[in-house]
């Protein structure tokens, strides 16, 4: 699955995007986030405050409990500050 990061989350993870093969038991946005944290210190640092993390599935805002099934791209980013 394609995983993309933005803003300080991207800086902390160290790459703007990557392909990750999530284990079969990873079925929700929240599961994906927890799996990423297990991948290394840069991920643990990036996701250290889950309340500040927002996510999107295939370019639509997604809640932590949203299922990954069928999605091709998951994005993680901080609260938005546009406008």
């Amino acid at each position: 699955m394609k995983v993309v990061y933005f803003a300080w989350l991207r800086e902390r993870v160290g790459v703007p995007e990557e392909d990750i093969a999530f284990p079969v038991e990873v079925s929700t946005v929240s599961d994906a986030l927890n799996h990423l944290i297990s991948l290394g210190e840069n991920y643990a640092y990036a996701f250290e405050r889950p309340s500040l993390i927002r996510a999107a599935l295939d370019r639509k805002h997604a809640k932590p409990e949203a299922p990954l099934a069928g999605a091709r791209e998951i994005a993680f980013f901080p609260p938005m500050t546009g406008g």
Partner: protein
Amino acid sequence: MSIPIDVRVQAEPFDEAAEQKALVTGRFDIGAVVAFTGYCRDEGGRLEALELEHYPGMAEEEITRICREAAERWPLLSLRVIHRFGKIDPGEGIVLVLASSAHRAAAFAGADFVMDFLKSRAPFWKKEHGRGGTAGDWVSAKDEDENSLARWV
């Protein structure tokens, strides 16, 4: 009813006058246009520039969804939104929202609503560049922007 919704995400500066002219020219049913322009401030001289990162694709789609929602809530005649990304100097425009309607109440409400949701829902992130090349900090989201959304429920 489907109205013209024009959303653009671009690095280039925008021309408010040309956009408003394009919105109203040849239309004699529009009685009111509300144009919101958001500018880059220098924060009392502290800022050299803002840098805006965005999520290509989702930025346009999310703003379009917000515009469609506004068009369902109020009798708008057209909506146009331009949001810039990249480096923006103090005094330059960052975002332009144009809402037209037959009467003023819908035009005000539509532009206000789109700006509110755009602030908290459109995938853009601002980084500050300080004077003298100091390393930039990412701007934190304001609670007041989230609270502002509560006005519309």
